[in-house]
């Protein structure tokens, strides 16, 4: 017996909701599968509502608004149109299919139309079939903390060795701009029994987990890891309020845990690209296809990164294995304290890796790199794959003389060390070696480079606020001041965060600078042409 589809509808108060009421007044029947949530404007419908509805098992989502030109709030419905078009792309990627989301213009006098839309949609959904993601609601359940758990976390991360020397707070880029935040204070509170305050406060979410403090700490206190452990025990409401983009990226990652999920995420692969289901080397793409849609208006062309990687690999004779149903590496989940879901994702990914017979994993994202190389092993107990960052692979090829450039580029480049590649994993020289091997490219350095590099200001889509923005702007100014034409880095997240700065709407602050950015892989692929 097929379960009846369940439709969640968001109807705008002035038109669509009124149209639905009129259907009632006129006694026009329609199937009872629909549940309406009233909003004032279709422009209020956040894409995250749609994603959450599907995450919780809705089979279809209907958004009803005023006809264009007649929006009660002037143009909210036009915004809704853009957003729903964007959301449909996400639904296609995640494998649910864009047909499960319908945006309809229904005026207050169109009771008949409303009934017709609901009837048709219900029928369509019966044909499309149920949402297979129904089954698991993966939102993190709160974990009641115990003093023992805190004490374990303290011991595990060396917090008890803190001598209160203040080197961390003096180094922390956020502390410099936000005088209410100090890593030392968080540590003190934890040691002195104020755990409640620490766990329910915002400080543990303010930390960028950039590792600058722990890099320099003379007592080897691994503060960011302590923060990570605390986040696991923190109440969800604080995290929900502070997370940027209303949690859309995380919701998408959670959906990937579902065993029934079948994504459609390879559409970016260019014609003629050589990949395979099996191979010695697996190219792990990461969430770029989704981020490309979420940050559509930035015009970042994020998909150039995986396209460049495949092109480079093919050119050097590697036919990488790729997963058509690749799951998120789980980095954000781990760093926001959702260990349970992280484990589930990790196990699934490892099972998929094994099927490809790969022995090496290569990735172009420092977060995926760190997570696969370090955290998977730690959390799962064993992990039999060699993990390489693309810059390491390319650097090896440079050494072997196998990386050929036709011509090259004429440009001055400044390289930024992403936290997860640099301080977290110690990979500083390989990207530099690759850059300097390109003919015509001059490499400039910022004063704060390698172990002293400053974070782009956001990690795991948390801690985005005016303080981290200052840190970010400062870093961009620093890059620009070197006189370079291009800012090159190997992290797509850093690029997203800097591009966000330059997409602000006027009046734009006079301290804002813009700088052209390029991902390392894209730079190399361009030069290889």
């Amino acid at each position: 017996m097929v379960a009846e589809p369940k439709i969640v509808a968001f109807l705008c108060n002035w038109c669509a909701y009124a149209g639905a009421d009129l259907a009632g007044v006129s006694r026009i029947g329609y199937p009872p599968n629909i549940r309406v949530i009233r909003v004032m404007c279709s422009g209020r419908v956040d894409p995250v509502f749609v994603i959450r509805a599907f995450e919780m098992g809705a089979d279809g989502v209907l958004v009803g608004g005023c006809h264009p030109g007649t929006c009660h709030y002037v143009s909210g419905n036009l915004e809704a149109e853009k957003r729903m078009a964007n959301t449909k792309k996400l639904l296609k990627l995640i494998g649910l299919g864009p047909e499960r989301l319908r945006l309809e213009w229904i005026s207050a006098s169109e009771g008949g139309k409303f009934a017709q839309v609901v009837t048709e949609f219900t029928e369509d959904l019966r044909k499309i079939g149920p949402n297979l993601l129904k089954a698991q609601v993966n939102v993190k359940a709160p974990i009641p903390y115990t003093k023992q758990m805190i004490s374990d976390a303290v011991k595990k991360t060396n917090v008890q060795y803190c001598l209160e020397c203040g080197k961390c707070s003096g180094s922390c880029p956020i502390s410099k701009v936000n005088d209410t935040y100090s890593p030392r204070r968080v540590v003190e509170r934890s040691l002195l029994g104020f755990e409640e305050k620490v766990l329910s406060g915002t400080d543990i979410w303010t930390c960028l987990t950039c590792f600058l403090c722990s890099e320099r700490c003379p007592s080897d206190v691994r503060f960011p890891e302590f923060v990570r452990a605390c986040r696991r025990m923190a109440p969800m409401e604080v995290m929900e309020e502070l997370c940027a983009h209303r949690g859309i990226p995380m919701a998408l990652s959670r959906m990937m845990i579902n065993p029934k999920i079948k994504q459609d995420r390879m559409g970016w692969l260019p014609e003629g690209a050589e990949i395979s289901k099996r191979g010695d080397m697996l190219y792990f793409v990461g969430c770029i296809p989704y981020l490309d849609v979420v940050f559509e208006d930035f015009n970042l062309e994020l998909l150039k990164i995986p396209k460049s990687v495949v092109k480079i690999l093919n050119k050097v004779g590697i036919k990488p294995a790729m997963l058509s149903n690749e799951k998120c590496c789980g980095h954000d989940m781990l760093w926001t304290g959702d260990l349970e879901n992280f484990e589930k994702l990790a196990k699934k990914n490892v099972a998929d890796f094994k099927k490809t017979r790969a022995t090496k994993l290569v990735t172009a994202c420092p977060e995926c790199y760190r997570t696969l190389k370090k955290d998977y092993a730690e959390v799962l107990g064993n992990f039999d794959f060699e993990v390489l960052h693309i810059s390491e692979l390319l650097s090896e090829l440079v050494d072997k003389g196998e990386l050929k450039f036709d011509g090259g580029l004429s440009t001055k480049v400044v390289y930024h060390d992403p936290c997860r590649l640099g301080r977290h994993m110690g990979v500083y020289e390989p990207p530099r070696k690759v850059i300097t091997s390109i003919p015509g490219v001059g490499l400039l350095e910022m004063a704060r480079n390698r172990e002293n590099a400053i974070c782009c200001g956001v990690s795991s889509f948390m801690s985005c606020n005016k303080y981290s923005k200052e840190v970010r702007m400062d870093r961009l100014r620093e890059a620009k001041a070197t006189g370079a034409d291009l800012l090159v880095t190997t992290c797509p997240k850093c690029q997203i965060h800097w591009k966000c700065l330059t997409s602000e709407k006027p009046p734009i602050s006079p301290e804002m600078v813009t700088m052209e950015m390029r991902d390392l892989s894209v730079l190399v692929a361009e030069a290889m042409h």
Partner: protein
Amino acid sequence: MNEKVGAVLVIGGGVAGIQASLDLADSGFKVYLLDESTSIGGTMAQLDKTFPTNDCSMCILAPKLVTAGRHPNIQLITHSELKKVEGETGNFQVTILKRPRLVNIDKCTGCGICAQNCPVEVPNEFDVNMGIRKAIYIPFPQAVPLKYTVDQEHCIKCHLCEKLCPPKAVDFDQQPETVKINVGAIILAPGFEEFDPRLKKEYGYGRFLNIVSSIELERIMNASGPFGGKIIRPFDGKIPRKIAFIQCVGSRDAQLGNNYCSAACCMYAIKEAVIAREQISTLLDCTIFYMDMRAYGKEFDDYYKRAKEEWGVKFVRSRVASATEDPLTGNIFVHYVEDEEPTTEEFDMVVLSVGMQPPKNVEKLAEILGIRLNKYRFCQTNVFSPSETSKPGIFVCGAFASPKDIPESVAQSSGAASKAMGIIATERGKLVTVKEYPPERDVGGEEPRIGVFVCHCGVNIGAIVNVPEVVEYAKTLPNVVYAESNLYTCSQDTQKLIREKIQQHNLNRVVVAACTPRTHEPLFRETVQEAGLNPYLFEMANIRDQCSWVHMREPKKATEKAKDLVTAAVSKAQLLKPLKKPVASVIPSGLVIGGGISGMTAALELARQGFEAHLVEREGELGGHLRHIYYLLGPENPQEMLKSIIKNVYENERIHVQLNTEIVNVEGYVGNFKTTIRSNGNEKQIEHGIVIVATGATEYNPTEYLYGIDPRVLTQRELEKKLAKRQLNGKTVVMIQCVGSRNEARPNCSRICCSQAIKNALKIKELSPETEVYVLYKDIRTYGFKEDYYREAASRGVLFLLYDDEHEPKATLENGKLLVSAWEPVLKAWVPIETDILALSVAVVPNNDNKSLAEMFKVPLTKDGFFLEAHMKLRPLDFATDGIFLCGLAHWPKLIDESISQASGVAARAATILSKKTLEAEGAVAYVNENLCIGCGRCTDICPYGAIEKNERGLAKVTDVLCKGCGNCAVTCPTGAITMEHFTNRQINAMIKAVVGG
């Protein structure tokens, strides 16, 4: 001596009457709104869509109906007749006869059981007799008041309704009631009646089924009409593939005695053709047969152009001779002449664009009120006082003053309201009811204690949804401490019960599962407030209109759905917070920018109402364009009027005039503006509560037709100056219309030029009857009663030659002679005319500094550069930003009486703000958590009301009085810094979880 009364009687509950009532009621006056029918709404309620926005008519009207119906200062007197008016301005005694509905409106809940069971079916007048209703009925579903009425003419007195009515509201013994009320002023807004097309026998209406009137087509197209919005033709129910629209049926018809133009039919025919094509498909062929296409309003020519070019509507300039029928197919043959060839074309359906007649029994109305009618039996007014009737204290607005469209009616009705306010300004606030509520209980820190009330709504819900089961289920939900069911949760006695239960069980949140919040949320919020709770601690679940009524055959599933909806409402209720309505203080003065006729009128109206007005003018004297107008089409003397108005302005103590003054900077928001002005180098700051933009427009400076090259080529204004001095040297005068208008650069009409040209033509003929006058035109747009002057000009021998874009006139100089080559379409030849004067009817163009003024006030401009109002149909005088208003040429080209109407209108709109000590805005507004704001500006970019801006630190801040609660900013904020109160992310996520069944 009679004392003045602070109340106004508005006769007619159409859109004009409603607007006037709302303006008055919101400014502290009591309003009696009288209508003959059982519901307010008028003709606009019958329309499908409105031009030029193609808005659904009921969608934009219904909220106004509800507001008027619920307003504490408006008393609706429907199904009633005006009997007698005695007294004088300031104090009228009015006798009204309330005809019996045979239904007690205090008891009737509008549930509809009576109509469902009434055995008598009657043609439905609202559907122009194309559909049916019962003998006990409401005219349309959104009727206000939503109370049933017995049609005594057709009722067979079976008393079934009386037996079935649960609250026992049907009362066959109800008698007519005579009421006497005292008012200080009367506003007439009785609207119009459609011309009866049977009087044009050559069109066969009434004989041939497939010929319908325009109002019938509106009902056919309307989704709530007799055919559910399917456009089918009456003969056989087939979908028409070819429709003809015949214009000017009953208008511009001297034979019938209706020489005037009905001013709206050209536009509504285009609209109907466009909408019909939208509904049927592009396979539908529409042809409009017209004489002149009068698309003179704001962006109407754009609409006309799109209809032609984008939407494929055909236009044939020919007045249809007759229409006959093919009796077998029902198709209609339309006979007309094109290019001198008599032609017959076959259509599936013909629509007659019927004109506007004065309302039924207008003579009786005029007699009762003691007002004069004009020759067409519409109300007599004059150019400089367009809303005044011949009797002091009685004002007029809408179609009864002269045929007009909806935006003009709405603007004029605000104008009439202002005039009424001016008479009884001293009585403001005396007769209004201010409701007192008990002090609000502070529920902070309390665990939610939710009470759930599930309504049976008679049998409407209870017969389908298992209400007792829902009640029991509700009790199991977290934080629900009390649940019960009611027969009618909205009845007066249940309100009392709810208040008692709130006290008894110490409830701090209330959920009602019943009908729709769109009609009943305000009622329950009030009940909750009367019990001492903040009104935002209330939520509704719609288990009737969106559940029981639409799942009548699936009672089990409907019950499950009702439970889900109750769970969602309860989940939201758990997270509801008390909200305060933001309050702003109000400085009781206005800044009027522009000292022309509009600005001066607005200032005078504000002053008459008791408010201070600062009138700033850029030039060294007041008067604007009126200084250059010496005579009008009618008998009024503009220069005398100008002198007298200027005198009034200077003599008025409340008006402060600043000449040679520019606006430098504006800060603040509604109720609290601070504007810096500069006069002669000195800067000064003015604090005021509202702004009126009356900055006017400019005359286009032509380069066409040898203007500037030959001194004989003049603009109409220059010609007028000469004619006023009786300096006419010439045997021939040629006038060219649309110079600088209706072209690529400026596609729209400048509206005044046709009247202006005819005015000058008539003057020329007065001074020198032998002088030949030629007017070269594209369309003559002398709409309304101005059509008489067109006819007059023709009778005096003025020759009108039609040209089109392919045959534009040419002006050349040959041996010192000024030659104009004009195209004659009937002869199909170029006619050379040697002329002594060539007068160019040049465009009215927006001022150069509109852009900088718009930026200063953060108000938008249209693509043509005029200012853009909040809503082209129903809010022509308001900007979307609260507290700023617009009138006169700055809005769009218009004539003097229209400017004066709008200028009076803005004073009424301003009074709704200035009359209050404090302004209360909607409580469900957005707010910014500064800790999360990154100052990216996306929210400030997206808010259409300017309600969110960057503060000194570059972070977003919401001005809560301006926020309308749409929530777009919250979605657009990348960090989630913005919370949309009452529709927060947490609340909505909780509702999603509740309905998907987590």
